């Protein structure tokens, strides 16, 4: 069948099972958008900024496990996707970002809206392609999707020259990929698995440290079986929340810089740390040489480069987390009573150092989060922006299932949450979706309110409005003598008026007693987004806090 490159692109995307594309047109993608006009097989969501499109595709991917797809034009369109690509790269999220490129005769001559996209995105992609010939399009798309979704997932950029989009080819979608340099290891080494089982049976104070890999791998069931069979407590990273039920009696909640005290003490006192799909990030470890000083280490990860990167590992296992845990489950013997003394000690820490905040008549941000948790009963999809509100959401919400906490962990991108919530709502039209935001973050991609309104997405945007760039202000208070340099945001616009100008529903809440009703009212709005402007205490701090350079048991608890 002789078709144009642009037609071949859309056909290839359909072969990959793509149902939704997030994008924004421009000169060098006109041929693609012409094919999309009237195309019934794929839904195109027009955002208001390419950064919004990329974060939306990311939120879509996190909510479903499928590859998120973006289309942007060349030059500034492509460079607007950089933050979104880097966000996905740091959190290992499968994306395929298709950018237009100037015609091959214009490449390398500083042409209008030309940018070296493959050069610029090289350090933040799993792989990237510059397509100059129409006949390469089907093979490249098949490879791009394969690379994005297999092994450790990640973003792939496909930069397609305009003439390649216009030229004709004889379309045949390949059956296989031929990538001799890319063969991820899925099956864990049986000898290593056996060694791990032995080490586990000898441990008296074990802890499971579960990260984003549990979610990417779809291993929640295997992890629960593993923890319950052996009676081992589980702590999660920010990326791992939802991988183990937050309200389970074995859950230690999140660990690290703003983790719970009981999780941090447990890790520092344990004699065996079992890392599952987690990478010993600096927000988790604190002062690295002092991290888990009494423990032997087992690490299961699909990416060999993460094994032993930061911490010396006694039993490394390279493999897919789901498969490896299933194997381990088959080898270990149930240990229902063995760790009772250890669990008792942990229970005492939980009682002595619960998460807390001042409970008085002042409307505090943590209270809003607790009310959101109460109203949604852990069944909603919670997206967050970045900052203090993100940490409180991670602390006070209990997630029962994977893919219900959507937050930029590795890069920490403000402005991520709202477009990600759009992607998640599109992915799951019947789900209740929240974006928990700060007043700083919500202004970064406010323009996407138009996208949400036009597509009638009933997202609830809970802004914890304290007129400050909260997390930075907290560091300035604790470490820079309260010198609040450029963190006061009190020239904020009236967010309620802004939301209404876009056609969204909006309300302001300043009193503690009005919070619950406002949230319940927002649930009744089903055909457009609702922005809730919560006027909260201005100088509240996130605790516990592990100051930079300290071990994680040297927390400031309040």
């Amino acid at each position, binding site marked *: 069948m002789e078709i144009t490159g642009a037609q071949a692109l859309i056909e290839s995307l359909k072969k990959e099972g793509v149902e939704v594309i997030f994008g924004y047109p421009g000169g060098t993608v006109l041929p693609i958008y012409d094919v999309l006009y009237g195309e019934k097989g794929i839904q195109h969501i027009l955002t208001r900024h390419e950064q919004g499109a990329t974060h939306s595709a990311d939120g879509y991917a996190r909510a479903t496990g499928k590859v998120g797809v973006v289309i942007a034009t060349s030059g500034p369109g492509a460079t607007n996707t950089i933050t979104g690509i880097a966000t996905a790269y740091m959190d290992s999220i499968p994306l395929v970002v298709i950018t237009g490129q100037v015609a091959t005769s214009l490449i390398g001559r500083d042409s209008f809206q030309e940018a070296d996209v*493959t050069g610029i995105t090289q350090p933040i992609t799993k792989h990237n392609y510059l397509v100059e010939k129409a006949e390469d399009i089907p093979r490249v798309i098949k490879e791009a999707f394969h690379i994005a979704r297999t092994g450790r997932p990640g973003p792939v950029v496909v930069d397609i020259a305009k003439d390649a989009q216009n030229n004709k080819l004889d379309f045949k979608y390949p059956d296989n990929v031929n*990538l*001799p*340099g890319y063969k991820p290891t899925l099956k864990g080494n049986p000898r290593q698995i056996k060694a791990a089982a032995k080490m586990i049976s000898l441990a008296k104070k074990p802890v499971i440290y579960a990260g984003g890999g549990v979610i990417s791998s779809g291993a929640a069931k295997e992890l629960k079986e593993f923890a319950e069979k052996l009676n081992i407590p589980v702590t999660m990273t920010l990326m791992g929340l939802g991988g183990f039920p937050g309200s389970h009696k074995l859950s230690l909640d999140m660990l690290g810089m703003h983790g719970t005290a009981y999780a941090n003490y447990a890790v520092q006192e344990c004699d065996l740390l079992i890392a599952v799909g987690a990478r010993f990030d600096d927000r988790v470890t604190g002062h690295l040489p002092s991290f888990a000083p009494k423990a032997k280490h087992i690490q299961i990860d699909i990416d060999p*480069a993460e094994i032993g990167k930061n911490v010396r590992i006694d039993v490394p296992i390279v493999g897919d987390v789901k498969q490896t845990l299933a194997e381990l489950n088959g080898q270990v013997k149930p240990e229902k009573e063995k760790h009772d003394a250890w669990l008792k000690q942990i229970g005492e820490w939980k009682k002595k150092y619960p998460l807390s905040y001042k409970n008085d008549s002042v409307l505090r941000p943590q209270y809003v989060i607790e009310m959101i948790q109460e109203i949604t009963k852990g069944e909603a999809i919670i997206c967050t922006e970045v900052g203090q509100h993100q940490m409180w959401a991670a602390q006070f919400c209990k997630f029962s299932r994977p893919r219900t906490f959507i937050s930029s962990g590795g890069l920490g991108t403000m402005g991520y949450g709202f477009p990600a919530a759009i992607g998640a709502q599109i992915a799951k039209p019947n789900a209740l979706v929240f974006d928990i935001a700060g007043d700083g973050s919500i202004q970064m991609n406010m323009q996407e309110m138009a996208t949400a309104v036009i597509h009638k997405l009933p997202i609830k945007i809970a802004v914890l409005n304290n007129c400050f760039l909260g997390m930075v202000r907290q560091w300035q208070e604790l470490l820079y003598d309260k010198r609040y340099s450029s963190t006061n945001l009190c020239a904020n616009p009236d967010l309620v008026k802004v939301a209404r100008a876009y056609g969204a529903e909006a309300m302001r809440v300043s009193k503690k007693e009005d919070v619950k009703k406002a949230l319940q009212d927002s649930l009744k709005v089903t055909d457009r987004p609702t922005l809730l402007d919560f006027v909260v205490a201005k100088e509240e701090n996130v605790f516990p806090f592990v100051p930079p350079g300290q071990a994680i048991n040297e927390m400031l608890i309040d």
Partner: protein
Amino acid sequence: MKHTISVIVENKPGVLHRVSGLFSRRGYNIESLAVGTTENPNISRMTIAVSGDDQTLEQITKQLYKQIDVLKVFDIPDSDAIERELVLIKVKADKKNLAEATKIAEMFQGKVVNVTAESAIIEVSTEKEKIEDLRKLLDKFGIVEMVRTGKIALQKGEIPRNPKGGKK
């Protein structure tokens, strides 16, 4: 500690950039880099001289394997390999000292490849350390310009190290 690693890559546009970019952004120190095709024109070999401890070398190797175009990475131990680097050195030389310069070149199995009234270009292909010795000897003539290719090396023995396909 110094290591020589051989990186076998698919000969695709941009692969040199990918590998050198990886080194620079992860802070690994490249002392020299030589690249060219192998007996299979679709496959190239990059010979990279790096400095770093064993843990750094392990991370470099693992990060290289993450690159889609990289097929194989191996460390070439100094003791078990043939190593060469090609250098061209232009020295100030006139009728009086040309003979001495030529003799020095011959001591290193090299030769004079160009002569003008006031200069001569010496070509030598040898191990890296001997190039340093040569340079010190030629210093007294006055070195006008010098260019080196960077080290290449092949491990001794019959086992071919270029894969026909598939990692590991």
